[in-house]
Every structure is written in C-alpha cells, then in structure tokens.
C-alpha cells in the first residue's frame, strides 16, 4: 500500500520529467541537429570543404574548432536566457576578444545568430498568447528601416576595429548597468518581501516547483488590442492597459535597429529597457514586440549586408554561415535549458555577476580606444 501511494505521489514529478524529456527529444533535438547539419552544408557550399580541425572558418582568419562555437552558443544562450537578455550582446565580445574573430565579417555572422535563436521562442510565445501584431507592427517597421541603414555605418564609420570596439564597449557598459540595476532592484524587492513575511512562502513555492510571483505566466490570457484610433494604439493584458504612439514606436525601432544592425546584435538589449522603463510594459507583454522585432531586424540586416550593400557600394560583408549555424545550434539548446531552469536560479545573483562582467568588458573596450591596454582585446 505504502509503495502504491509513493508511486502515486511521485507520478506528477515523473510525468513532468517525461514531458521535459519528450519536449527535448521531439522539438529541440531535431532543431539542433538540423542547425548542425546545415552548418556543415553551409561550410561546404561557401568554402568548398566541410568545417573541421584547423580549417573550420576561413572568413574569421582564426583557428576555432567547431565544438567551441557550439559551446559558445550554448553557454551565452543559457546564461543570458536565464536573466532574460538576448545572447547576442554577450556572444559578440566573446567572439571578438576570446575567439579573436573581429574583422567586419563578425557583424553579419552574429546577426545570423540573433536571427535564428529567437525563432523557437517566437513559436512558444505565440502558443502561450504572448502575441499582438498591433504592438509589434510599428516597432518592426522601424526595425526594417534601421536594418537597411545600420550596415552602411558598419562599412564606413565603424569599419576599423577600434571605433567598432568602442561602440560595442559603450553598448556593453549600458547592458551591464541595466543588469546591475535589475539585480539591485531584485535584492531590494526580495528584502521587502522578507520583511513582510512573504519571503519564506515564495521560497517554499519555488522549491515545490511553483512559478515565482515575479515570473508572469498566464496561459489562459492573451494580449489584446483594445482600440486603434486617433493615431494611438491601446493594448490590454488582464486588467491593465497601455496606450502607445505608433510614430514613437517606429522611430524607436529605427534608431535601435540602426545601432543594432551596425554592431550585429538583435537590439533587444536596448528595446527591453525602453519598453520596461518608459512604457512600463511587463516582460510578459513586451516580448510580444521585442521577439518579432529582433527576428525582423536581423533578417533585414542580413539581406542588407549580403545583397543591398554590394549592389550599392560594390562591397559585400558576408557572414561565416557555418559559424552562425553552429552557434545557433548551441543557442537553441541554451535558451531552452534557460527556460526550463530559470525559476530555480537565484536570478539577482546571476544578474549581479553578469552585469559586472559585461560592464567591465565594456569599460575595457572604451578605455582601449583612448589608452591602449597592455593586452590584446
């Protein structure tokens, strides 16, 4: 009897583990395998040989084994996914400074990563109702404009390594400050909950596998459009409303997109703080705009680097396709693992660490522009 009741008590946990396993084997593993196979195929089509050993990625000018690129995609996708940031802003400095891939081809290559990584998340968010075309439309249109302009800056103003590194450094410093302020806010909120006596209950809920209060999951609610008149769009989620100006969304998308496509990142590192601080949109709602935006911007950026730029200037900056696909394979796994483990991770400590690392890396890039450092960046 006790054995039977133990089995019944364990059933929910066993079923949950089976569901995670089935989800990985049925959904994620085929995507990862597909990306890896496409990576080898792309390497052969682009360079005439399969990426291997010392000759994996000719456009980088460096010797980087395939496993290291997949590992980079996995750990950047995982760590940044846990704190709700995109992997691109972390993958770019690692690629430039550790893997020493810092010529202009790095920009469309990381843009390929930011294009492929969020595709799985987009489908997941659509399934859970985090989808609203009216919220995403104008910022995506701005992203299209930004994706058309940014690559020209990369070819001209940011063509040299130092100005490019300096710009990346400024962006990294901003991302680092954003992570640090998020961490400090989290510590403050946690302390307040403890003082109100809610702390232990939240921790017990987390241990029992319940979603923490700060993670908004509402499977039965959608983000709806309340009205579209007088040049304003009002969206609603549960009992909350937000009114947005399409013109402002467009301009925001264009400016962020210009900078992001010039660097080769997705733009989420700027767009998320803007939506969160100015419009006060919660994370659950703003991903309905930022995820489509990153995909649209990255796609347009890639097309601009590969087709429009050479048509107008005669100079093409092609991505290292195999590199981008291998990194995406790792990123798919990393972001999936982040989604599964995020609620068990002490997010504030991780944000503190990542914010410090990102901020220090950004500061070094900025300093190196004016005072050459004694080591290679």
């Amino acid at each position: 009897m006790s054995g039977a009741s133990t089995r019944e008590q364990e059933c929910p946990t066993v079923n949950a583990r089976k569901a995670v396993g089935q989800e990985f084997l049925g959904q994620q593993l085929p995507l990862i395998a597909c990306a890896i196979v496409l990576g080898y195929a792309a390497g052969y089509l682009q360079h005439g040989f399969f990426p291997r050993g010392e000759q994996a990625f000719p456009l980088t000018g460096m010797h980087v084994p395939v496993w290291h690129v997949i590992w980079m995609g996995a750990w950047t996708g995982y760590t940044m996914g846990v704190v709700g940031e995109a992997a691109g802003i972390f993958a770019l400095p690692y690629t430039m400074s550790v893997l020493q891939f810092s010529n202009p081809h790095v920009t469309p290559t990381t843009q390929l990563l930011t294009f492929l990584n969020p595709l799985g998340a987009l489908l997941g968010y659509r399934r859970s109702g985090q989808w609203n075309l009216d919220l995403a439309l104008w910022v995506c249109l701005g992203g299209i404009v930004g994706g058309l302009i940014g690559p020209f800056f990369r070819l001209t103003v940011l063509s040299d390594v130092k100005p490019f590194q300096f710009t990346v450094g400024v962006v990294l410093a901003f991302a680092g400050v954003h992570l640090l302020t998020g961490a400090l806010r989290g510590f403050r909120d946690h302390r307040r909950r403890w003082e109100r006596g809610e702390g232990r209950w939240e921790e017990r809920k987390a241990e029992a596998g319940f979603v923490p209060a700060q993670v908004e999951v509402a499977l039965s609610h959608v983000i709806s459009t309340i009205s579209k008149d007088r040049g304003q769009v009002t969206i609603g989620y549960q009992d909350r409303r937000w009114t947005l100006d399409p013109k402002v969304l467009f301009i925001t998308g264009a400016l962020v997109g210009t900078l992001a496509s010039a660097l080769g990142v997705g733009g989420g590192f700027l767009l998320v703080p803007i939506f969160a601080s100015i419009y006060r949109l919660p994370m659950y709602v703003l991903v309905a705009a930022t995820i489509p935006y990153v995909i649209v911007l990255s796609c347009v950026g890639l097309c601009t680097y590969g087709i429009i730029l050479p048509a107008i200037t005669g100079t093409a900056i092609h991505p290292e396709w195999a590199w981008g696909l291998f990194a995406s394979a790792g990123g798919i796994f990393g972001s999936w693992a982040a989604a599964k483990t995020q609620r068990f991770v002490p997010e504030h400590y991780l944000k503190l660490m990542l914010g410090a690392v990102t901020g220090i890396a950004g500061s070094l890039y900025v300093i190196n522009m004016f005072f050459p450092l004694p080591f290679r960046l």
Partner: protein
Amino acid sequence: MKKRRLVLFARALVPYLPFIVLFAAVLVGAYHISTYW
C-alpha cells in the same frame, strides 16, 4: 537508491548551474586564449 541519489544531487545543482556554466566558459576561454597568446 543510487539513481535516486543522483537525481537528488542533480536537482540540488540546478540553482548553481549558470554559475557552473560561467566558470566552465572562463576555463574554456582561457584555454583557447593560451593557444595563441
């Protein structure tokens, strides 16, 4: 019993996983830098 202990150990590691992954990334990155430094 051994399997259950392993599962419990793995579950206890989950909150520390990002830090373990970051540490591993630092080690791998340092190794790669040492190959061309």
